[in-house]
Every structure is written in structure tokens, then in C-alpha cells.
């Protein structure tokens, strides 16, 4: 009896049942007179199957080529990193700080760790390099995946292969140098972009927006994504290319212009809030109303210079807030600084308004923006966690040295309400925003807390230090 015979004659009987498919009598050799031999055949067949080697598939999937030039994080940092990122009670601050560090230092997580920190990788794939992006995209259909290459230096030939955030930064720079060349780059790849990428790429047109962009923007009026259509229409309105600028009209309708002064008449501007807008919702209304208006449009319509506009709004906090928001949208930090000088609590007002993005500002610009809004507080820095959390979320960068100096000198961690003192959100956020040069000072403040409270932020500081000081080569 050989394996073929067993498969042909015995297996069908065992699978279908001997009551329906009796075993061939000539094959059965009972081991004892009391046995009918079927169980012996069961064991024989079972053992024959155990000796069969597993089948090799006809083909295996060919893994995509990933050209990842980033260096892998040092081995000694891997376990603390995993522990920190998978800690059940950790806030989102450490993850945000680590993702930034990976991006800034051009490091990547160890490929073997990707399954262990899956949630972190999915949320921050863009900042972690091509290998991590491939991991995050692995469930996507092949058509939606991209090439996994993240070159160190971008130019016109390879910019498409980089991560979206790096492409945006590159385009922004190109828009400043040569807006037409940057537009040509976007036009060449527009058809292949996803809706979110199209929207973010279009946002970059804010920099160096000119009439030469009009023809491209006009083609976007029929874009499939509503928010892309809306943004293109807004830009066209700014260029005066659309019939009427509804957003500007809505703003002007609410701005009351008057003259004041006895010896020298000065223009004063004031926003008249609609009757149904209460104090607590005023900031939000201002953000919504002024979001689509540019400074140029406003100064043009009111026939004042930018400086005069700010001076005219000096006694009207709502209008100052509107100007702060517009200056932020347009990355005009010089004007923002002038506005904040007259509206020292701009930070709190913008938070109330629900500002949720700083657009395409570069890291250094975001840091400068933060300095401008925080500096007026000096020693009276707010102890409201929501404000700081919002600031960290919106800037998504570590604090500048001067901001951190304010935080450390004010001993913010010891001033927060007693029930929040040393709580994970506070201490972890402070560690996440602290620049390298001030980590030691922060450590000294953290160790005054109970070890149970300081263990996570100290671990984060150690990992960030380690990432900066030590890189491994593959």
C-alpha cells in the first residue's frame, strides 16, 4: 500500500464517512480480532498526511522597492521608544515630538518595530520616511500607493517622489523664488494627486499669488473636490478675476469707518457684530467671516495702508483679532507683531476663534509666530492647559528658546492648578515642546515631581537627546 493508494481509496472514505463510502476490504488489516480495522486506517492515513510536505505556492508577491535613505534609529533607543509610544496612558504630545524629531533628523524607525508602533506610524507616516509610508499604505489598493523614495535634496526632477509635507515645503520655496515655475510643477502632476494633496498644494498658491496663476485657477473651478473649488474661487476673487468678492463684501458690511481726534483727524475702524453673535461666539464669527479675505483686499477697499489699517483698528479688539487672523493666513508676521502689540491676548482670542491651522508655514516661521503670540504674557503665562495644548497642536513644532525660557522662568509647571500639577498632559507637553538646549533645565524642574509623574517626560527627553546625538548606519 503506497501513499497514492491511500489518497485514492482511503481518504475519500474517511472524509465522507465509512457509512456512505465503505473502505475497500482488501486494504484493511485489523490489529486485533476485536477491531474492524477502520481506526488503524485512520491512524495510517493521518500519519501519511503528517509526512506530506507543505505545498509551496506557485508564486510569491514581489515586495516593492523602497529607497529609504534615512538612517535607522539607534538600537538602544528602540525599546524605550516602543514603550513610550505604546504606553496606554500616554498623551499625544510625545508621539508628536518624536515624529517631528524623525523628520527633522532624517531618521526612521527600525522596520521591525513598525508593527509594534502601528498607530504612531499610521498617524505620522509622512514624517517617518518611505519605509514607514509603505507600511502605512500596505492595506491600500495598489493603484493608490506611491513610489517610496524620499530624497535628501529635492529638485524639479525628484520633488514628486518626496512626502507631501516635503513637497509642500519645496513648492513654497519655489513659489517665493519663481512662482510661475512652481505653478508649472504643480500643473504637471495635478491629475495624479488625491483630493487632500490637491487642496494642500493649492494652499501654497497663497505665496506669490498673481494674475499669471489665473488661467490655472480657472481650470480648478470644475475640480471634483468642493474644497479645492472653493479655495480656487477665493484666489480668483482676490485676483479680481471673479465677478464679485462676496467674502470681502460681507466683511466690509460689518466694518464701521469713522473719524476721531480733535487736532488731527484719524480714521477709526470698528466691527459691528451681528445681533445674534454673543460675546463668547464673537471670535469664532470673526474667524469664519474674515477667513477668505486678504489684507490687500481690505486695505484696497478701505483705502488705507496696512499700517494705517492696524492703527485704525487699535481700539477695536474684534477687528484686531480679524487682522491677526488675516496676517497669520498670509504669513505676514511683521504685521502680526504690530497687531499683537495692540492685542496682547491675541493667543487666547485666536484659540477661542478656533483657528486650526497655520497653513504652509515653515517650522521656523511657526516658531516665530509662537514667539509673537506668547511674548506679551511674559511672567503671566496662562496656566490653562487647553491653550498650551492648542498652541502645540497648531504650531506642531518645539518651542523657540525664548518661549521656553518664559515657560521655565515662570515655573509654569508649579503654577498650574493644584489638581493638574504634575499631570501627564502638562509634563508630557512641556517635554515635547522643549528645545534641546533647555532640556537639562526642564529635567531639573521635572525631577521635583513624583517619579510616577516624571517618568514619561524624562524618557521622552532621553529619547530625543539620543536621537539627536546618536545615529546608526545600516
Amino acid at each position, binding site marked *: 500500500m503506497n501513499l497514492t493508494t491511500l489518497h485514492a481509496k482511503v481518504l475519500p472514505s474517511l472524509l465522507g*464517512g*465509512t457509512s456512505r463510502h465503505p473502505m475497500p476490504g482488501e486494504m484493511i488489516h485489523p490489529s486485533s480480532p476485536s477491531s474492524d480495522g477502520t481506526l488503524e486506517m485512520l*491512524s495510517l492515513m493521518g500519519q501519511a498526511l503528517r509526512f506530506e510536505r*507543505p505545498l509551496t*505556492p506557485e508564486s510569491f*508577491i514581489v515586495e516593492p522597492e523602497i529607497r529609504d535613505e534615512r538612517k535607522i534609529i539607534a538600537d538602544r533607543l528602540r525599546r524605550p521608544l516602543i514603550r513610550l509610544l505604546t504606553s496606554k496612558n500616554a498623551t499625544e504630545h510625545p508621539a508628536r515630538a518624536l515624529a517631528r524629531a524623525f523628520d527633522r533628523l532624517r531618521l526612521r524607525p527600525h522596520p*521591525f518595530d513598525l508593527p509594534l508602533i502601528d498607530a504612531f506610524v499610521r498617524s505620522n507616516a509622512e514624517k517617518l520616511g518611505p519605509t514607514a509610508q509603505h507600511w502605512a499604505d500596505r492595506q491600500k489598493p495598489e493603484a493608490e500607493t506611491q513610489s517610496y523614495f524620499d530624497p535628501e535634496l529635492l529638485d524639479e526632477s525628484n520633488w514628486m517622489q518626496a512626502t507631501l509635507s516635503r513637497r509642500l515645503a519645496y513648492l513654497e520655496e519655489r513659489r517665493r523664488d519663481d512662482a510661475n515655475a512652481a505653478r508649472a510643477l504643480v500643473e504637471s502632476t495635478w491629475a495624479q494627486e488625491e483630493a487632500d494633496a490637491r487642496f494642500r498644494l493649492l494652499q501654497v498658491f497663497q505665496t506669490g499669488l498673481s494674475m499669471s496663476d489665473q488661467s490655472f485657477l480657472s481650470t480648478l473651478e470644475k475640480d471634483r473636490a468642493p474644497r479645492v473649488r472653493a479655495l480656487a474661487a477665493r484666489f480668483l476673487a482676490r485676483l479680481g478675476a471673479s465677478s464679485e468678492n462676496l467674502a470681502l463684501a460681507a466683511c466690509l458690511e460689518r466694518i464701521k469707518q469713522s473719524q476721531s481726534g480733535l487736532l488731527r483727524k484719524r480714521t477709526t475702524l470698528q466691527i459691528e457684530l451681528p445681533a445674534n453673535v454673543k460675546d463668547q461666539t464673537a471670535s469664532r464669527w470673526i474667524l469664519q467671516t474674515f477667513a477668505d479675505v486678504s489684507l490687500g483686499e481690505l486695505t484696497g477697499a478701505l483705502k488705507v495702508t496696512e499700517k494705517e489699517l492696524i492703527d485704525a483698528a487699535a481700539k477695536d479688539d474684534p477687528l484686531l483679532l480679524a487682522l491677526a487672523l488675516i496676517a497669520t493666513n498670509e504669513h505676514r508676521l511683521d504685521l502680526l507683531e504690530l497687531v499683537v502689540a495692540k492685542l496682547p491676548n491675541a493667543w487666547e482670542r485666536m484659540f477661542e476663534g478656533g483657528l486650526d491651522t497655520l497653513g504652509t508655514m515653515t517650522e521656523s516661521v511657526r516658531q516665530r509666530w509662537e514667539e509673537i503670540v506668547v511674548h506679551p504674557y511674559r511672567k503671566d503665562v496662562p496656566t490653562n492647559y487647553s491653550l498650551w495644548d492648542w498652541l502645540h497642536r497648531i504650531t506642531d513644532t518645539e518651542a523657540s528658546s525664548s518661549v521656553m525660557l518664559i515657560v521655565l522662568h515662570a515655573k509654569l509647571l508649579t503654577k498650574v492648578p493644584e489638581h493638574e500639577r504634575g499631570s501627564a498632559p502638562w509634563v508630557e507637553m512641556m517635554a515635547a515642546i522643549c528645545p534641546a538646549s533647555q532640556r537639562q533645565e526642564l529635567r531639573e524642574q521635572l525631577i521635583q515631581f513624583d517619579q510616577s509623574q516624571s*517618568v514619561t517626560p524624562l524618557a521622552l527627553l532621553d529619547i530625543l537627546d539620543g536621537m539627536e546625538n546618536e545615529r546608526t548606519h545600516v
Partner: protein
Amino acid sequence: MSLTFERIEALAPDQASLAAARKLLKPAMWPALAEGEGLVWGECQGSGATPYRVVVSEADAGYKCTCPSRKFPCKHALALMWMRADRSTSFAAATVPDWVKDWLSRRRGTSSSASKAEEEAKPKTKPSIRLTEIPEAEADADPKAEQRATAARERSRLEREAAVMAGLEDLDTWLSDQVQHGMANFVAQMAQACRTIAQRLVDAKAPGLAGRLDALPTRLFTLPGPVRPSAAIRELGQLHLISQAYRRTSELPELLAADARQAVGWSITREALLNDSEAIRVDAQWRVFTVLSEAQPDRLRRVETWLWRQSRADGTPQCAVLIDFVPISTGAAVGGYLVGDQIEAELCFYRSTIPLRAQINTLKRGAEQTSAPLTLPDEGLSTSYAKYEHALAQLPWLGTIPLSFRAASVRRNGEQLYLYDEESGLSLPMHTSQANHASPLATVDRIDGIGLWNGYEFTLAWAETRLGRWTRS
């Protein structure tokens, strides 16, 4: 072994215990903290008037606490380990107090040679597990009582033999029924069918067979639907083989007979094993290459610590597995060892045709993490697989066995990963639970490593690659 955060984290029964331990890190909560002879101990002020006494052995992360917690280790033991690992808290050097000595004397197997000598010198005033090995205790016993006890034990054994035989008859009848109705039909209703016969085998005092049957549905459900009927033939065929072998132990080689009895459920106590002069003993350096933990239907967690022999010892087993059972309710998911630990110990193997299961007889050096690679033989997956087939021929109901390999690769076909040996074309399907964790290995060209093969799926445990080491976690 030095206590590390990784080890503490691995020992912790759950995240809540770690969080609770973290709150006990304040030195003010520890009126006493001391160290000596490889131990650290302290008193932790709990909610009661009397502080809890906690002791931890640094050699093997053994611990004891007087608190009533049902979690093991409790938050006090974890906190003590944490403070020790952190090194920011000072421990006063002191002589070991009596309550710590008492705990040491009750521990099994893992005590260091120094404490062992001390223990042997000490008069045996308190009952302990070690007393079972001391002949003088027997000398004091009443000979008649001893005779009565021996007779009772023999009577009990005979009764159990009879019960097992009756159980095997039931099993044969049940197997015949399944064969009559067919495996396709069996697979459709195996959960209930296996449960019923497993209960009858428990009654028949054949817990080994009962356990196999209890676990069978779960095992088959992890396989793809189309292969389940043929897998059922394999599994039920093995049951019949064990049943037949048990009936004919007198005709079988001694080791195979021992295998048959163990498979049916005759257990051997640790003490009996260590007293067995013919049991294989291997004194070597061992490396933990994986730790498996599985919850059983009997509310026990089976923790398997798989060891690879690092130092040379020709003709002796290359691998060993230490098996511990802990109540699921304690939350403990691992033994005292972590993957990568190296120990120096004499292992005593249970008698078997393919000796794998062992107990630590003497621990000469506690676990230490090392980055050294495993001393894998220079052979590919096909050679290892051939050895498995040879072992299967010797022990037909062979279960999980380690396979080492060199120059293999992980390949993907759909969601299924395979360990592939290009030279021979052999590919072993990897355990479905590893589809996610092991998938980064598919981007690496060549791996050397070791894993566990259960006849259906390969669980990769350890791999050395150009990107560094990968371990199953």
C-alpha cells in the same frame, strides 16, 4: 541577573499593575529597604497597620509579598523591582532577615549554590517542598503507616489504570463513530463532539487525552476551512495511535512507552524527575529563544519557555522547553525569563524518545540579557525539516518541535507569510498570528533563525538579519 525595566514590564500582569506600582515609587512609602546576597527586600506601608513585606531575588526575578493581592507579581513586588532597576533609590546593605530566609527555603530549584549550602546546613524545622527529597524525614516515619500508604497508592494506581482503559474503550467507540460519519461532518460539529468525549476522558483519569481533545477544535479553527477535514484525520489518527500505544506499553521501547503514558496523562512530579538517575541531564549555557503563553480551558495559563543550548554538549538535546502553569486570574502572562536571556543551568529532561520538556535542576548563573547571536548549526531549513521527519517517525504523536535554519527568507502570498528555503524549494506556512508582526521580514533577503513547527504552521521565534535581530514578541 540585573533587574531591568523590560523584565519588569514583561512580568507585570497588566498595565494597571504597573500604574499602581508607579505610585509606590516614593521612598516615603517604604520604611525599610535593604539588599544582600542577591536579594532585595523591603516593607511597604499599605492601607493596613502592618506594612507588607516584599522580597525579590535578583537572580531570577522571583518575588514574594505578604499582601493579599491576587495578581502576581503584585504592585508592591513590581515597585520594589522598579526601584531596584531605577537605581535612584538607595538600599541599605543588611543581613538577610529570617522572613526572607524562610521564603528562600521554600523556593524550588532556582536557589543559588550559596544559599543552598546554607539551607542544607540549617536544621529542618519547617515543612517545605524540599523536604520531599530528604531521606531522614522518611526514617522517622512509621513503617506500618508507610506500608499502608504504599498499598493505598498502588490500589489507587490500579484503579486509575482500569479507569483509563475504560476511557480508551470509549475513545475508540467515539473515534469509530466519527470515522463512520466522516471528517467533513466531524468538522461541522467538532466543538460539542470533542467537549463531550473530553469530559468522559477526564472522568476516566486520562487528562492528557482530554486536553488534546479540548484543544482540538481551537486548533482546527485556526486552519483554513478546506484543510480542516484532512487535519482532523491527522489529529484523530494520533489519538488512536496514543490509545493503542498505551495498551501495548509492555511491547514498546521504554522511552516510547513513557511518551505514551505521558500523552494519556500520567504526570511525573518534579521531585520524581529530579530523583530519576536515568533522566538525561545537560549542564550548559542556555538561551531563551521564545516564550509562548496560552490560556487553557481549565483556567490555567500554560507558559512555555523555549531554550537553545549555546555551549557544546555532544549527543544531548539542543533545545529544551520549561513548562509552567499559572492561574489565568493572576494575570501573569510570562515566566521569569525573557527572550534573549542566557542562563547557565543543569536541565533534567523528562523521559521521551524526543526529549524536549525539562526542569531546571541547578541554576548556576541567573538570567542575563546578552546580544550574542544563537549558535545555530550551519544547516538550511530542508535539513532541519528532514530531522523533524525523522523525529516524527520515532514519535508518531510528536507535537511542536523547534526548527533552526540558515539562509531562508520570508515570502508573502496574499496575506499568508511563508518561510522559504530557496535551495530546496521548501516553504513552511507561517502562523497566521504573525502575518503582521513578521511582515517586515519579507523585505529582508536572507535570515538565519529558529522557530517552532507544529506540523501545520511555523511560528518564527528568532531571526538574525542584515537589519539586526528580530524576535517574536
